[in-house]
């Protein structure tokens, strides 16, 4: 390290402001959050804090800055607690989760380019990835499989426990995987922490008179785009392979296992169909027995039987029950952990819907007129 020998390396802490040591440093230096919000000397800190939050809603995420001097490092370090104040003020679950993703991606970039393995090790451990020395020469570290399970990103099959080198409870990891796990650990931690932050007093609103309304506007635009993704008619082209397979099976009158029928009904329901619409959707199948299925569908959608609305099973459940057509998964599958997210993602890449969507058969008159 460039600053080896100094008791605390501020440049290092600035890159990883989430670790407890960074928090202790800020406290020990006597910085008060109140001062950070009002003092003219901290203008740059506040600007960087806004940038952090705003960056989390941008495609490229939070821009990294190279803090060359100690002063720049302090700006970077102090901007993190201020950014948290902004999030606490905005108090929005969607933003919180975007922010958690963006900060953890930034962490990944920084850790990946870190020269010193010990830094990777220290940061990982500080963020709740308790590494242990590797038992072989090939790997960077080993991790107890229960810790591995807590942080492993669920969507990628190469992260499944079954594909790990697991021995006596420990998974062998290379450095890149340690970094990825640390990213996930930070993301989980931030989601929990920020959600629990108490709403700050008026001083935050006062400190960001222009910035807060601007952030609110950006956020609203994001929400609108997200909502648009799943509204409108259901489009089979955007179904994930699992739902396509189940739907294909139903059309071909193949006996679909209970879990499969359950999955597609909850899926359609979550896309906004009520039980009538689901029935109508199924009635596209010739000689589909509406009455036989009505009870089941109404039960699953919560219309009868205590009103419990069931949620669509995620990818890992689908796999466990053997409903995920493993061989037919495509690139979108590997980027999501839930069939509904597949649909949202796929929908964005499709051209606008044609006038007669499958769920509503064309009106008889229209057909006659043509």
């Amino acid at each position, binding site marked *: 390290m460039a600053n080896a020998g100094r008791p605390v390396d501020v440049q290092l802490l600035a890159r990883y402001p989430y670790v407890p040591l960074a928090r202790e440093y800020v406290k020990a230096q006597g910085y008060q959050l109140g001062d950070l919000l009002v003092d003219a000397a901290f203008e740059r800190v506040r600007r960087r804090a806004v940038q952090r939050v705003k960056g989390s809603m941008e495609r490229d995420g939070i821009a990294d800055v190279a803090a060359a001097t100690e002063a720049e490092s302090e700006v970077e370090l102090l901007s993190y607690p201020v950014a948290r104040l902004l999030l606490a003020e905005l108090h929005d679950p969607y933003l919180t989760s975007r922010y958690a993703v963006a900060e953890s991606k930034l962490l990944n970039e920084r850790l990946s380019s870190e020269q010193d393995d010990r830094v990777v090790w220290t940061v990982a451990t500080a963020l709740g990835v308790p590494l242990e020395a590797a038992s072989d020469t090939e790997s960077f570290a080993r991790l*107890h499989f229960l810790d591995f*399970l807590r942080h492993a990103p669920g969507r990628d*099959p190469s992260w*499944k426990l079954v594909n790990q080198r697991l021995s006596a*409870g420990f998974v062998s990891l290379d450095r890149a995987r340690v970094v990825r796990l640390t990213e996930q650990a930070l993301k989980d931690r931030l989601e929990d922490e920020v959600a629990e932050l108490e709403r700050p007093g008026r001083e935050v609103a006062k400190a960001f008179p222009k910035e807060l309304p601007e952030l609110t506007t950006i956020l609203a635009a994001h929400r609108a785009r997200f909502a648009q993704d799943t509204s409108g008619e259901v489009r089979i082209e955007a179904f994930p392979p699992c739902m396509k397979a189940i739907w294909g099976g139903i059309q071909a009158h193949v006996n679909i296992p209970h879990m499969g029928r359950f999955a597609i009904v909850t899926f359609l329901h979550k896309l906004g169909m009520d039980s009538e619409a689901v029935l109508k959707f199924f009635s596209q199948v010739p000689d589909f027995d509406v009455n036989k299925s009505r009870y089941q569908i109404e039960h699953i959608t919560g219309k009868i039987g205590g009103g419990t609305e069931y949620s669509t099973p995620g990818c890992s459940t689908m796999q*466990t029950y053997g409903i995920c057509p493993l061989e037919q998964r495509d690139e979108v599958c590997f980027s999501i952990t839930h069939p509904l997210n597949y649909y949202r993602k796929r929908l964005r890449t499709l051209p606008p819907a044609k006038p007669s969507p499958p769920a509503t058969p064309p009106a008889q008159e229209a057909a006659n007129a043509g």
Partner: protein
Amino acid sequence: MQDELRPQDVWLSERFADYYRRNPTPMPAVVERFREREFGFLFHGQKFFLRHVGMPTPRELRQFMIQRAPAHAYYSTAFYQDPNAKTMVEKGWRGAELIFDLDADHVPGAEKLGYRAQLEKVKDHFLRLVEDFVMRDFGFAEKDLLLTFSGGRGYHCHVLHGRALGLNSAERREIVDFVTGTGLQLNAFIRPMTLRTKGFGRFQKADNTVVIPADDEPGWGGRINEAIRLHLAALKALPAEKKDDVLRMNFNGITKARLLTLQKDLDHLDEDRIRGVRFPDGTRRGIVDVGVEIYKYMERTLTFDTLVPLAKGETDEPVTSDVKRLIRLPGSLHGKSGLRVVTLDLDDIRGFDPLADAVAFGTEPIRIRVEKPANVDVAGFQADLPVGEATVPEAAAVMLMCRGAAVPI
């Protein structure tokens, strides 16, 4: 709710009550967090399931067992703030044991066997599950485990390790998937490779080779090695004609000459090299390297579907991923067999004979009427009983009545 009780229901209830009177409180191992458990019961001849029952102390449980003599008794693997509450939210989940449940239903081929043979087969699979997966791979020690015979056709392994209790359902599912090989990516373990090796005559090595994990690799690596050896050995052991058929099936339209080469390749497979050789970089890996035909064969046939069944473990998947499951109470009786749910040490399992060691009743002769022809084999008493009256030892009478094959006279 009350169903009409038949004579055998009354008789069994009396015998079960007597058993509970004679024996200490069931479930010694979980007394620690006793108050946080939910209990559930089914009774002889009655359909309703009594659940959401909390027991303040083991004494109350004992009294309950003696007074109500349930046919089946269960407790929650989960801990709850209020086990009496009717809904999950009100119950307040506080963690759950990690459970592996292996029943004859999950063991391929077991359905064709008789009860005794089924029990034996399930036991073998259970030992593999506990020793290879739970202990060797997951690293749990025997002191973290509670192992039981279920009283029916299976065994349960409870992991009580503090760190396992907080696992959520998705994490538990990953653990099941590990055991059953679900989602295994074979191509992450097996790599076709080109190794240029000099040599001639019978030392000639093919350019193409398949590199596999060594036999001593932890986790699925070693299992894949074992599965490949098992598969190739089985193929080699086939009679010549059958072997031809199998190979032809995998190589549509293979020429006679190539078939011969493939046969020869198979004969020359070097088991030691498949198990593992030291590579120049110091790692140990297995090599299947004889001949271009065997390489093609492996490419086509050594798929997930061929290999995983040879190496996978068996366990009831939904049981493990369920964080609020009820499971049989150790020390209680199983109402379909009359056998006891027995807590076992790992060392005792191999020699454990449920039909002798889980017997809860004695040899007192009991007069019964057999209503369906039945085979019974318990506590050293073995008989094929035709319909009609018979006198059998108490343990056999209990078992026959539990199965619904006999009534008391």
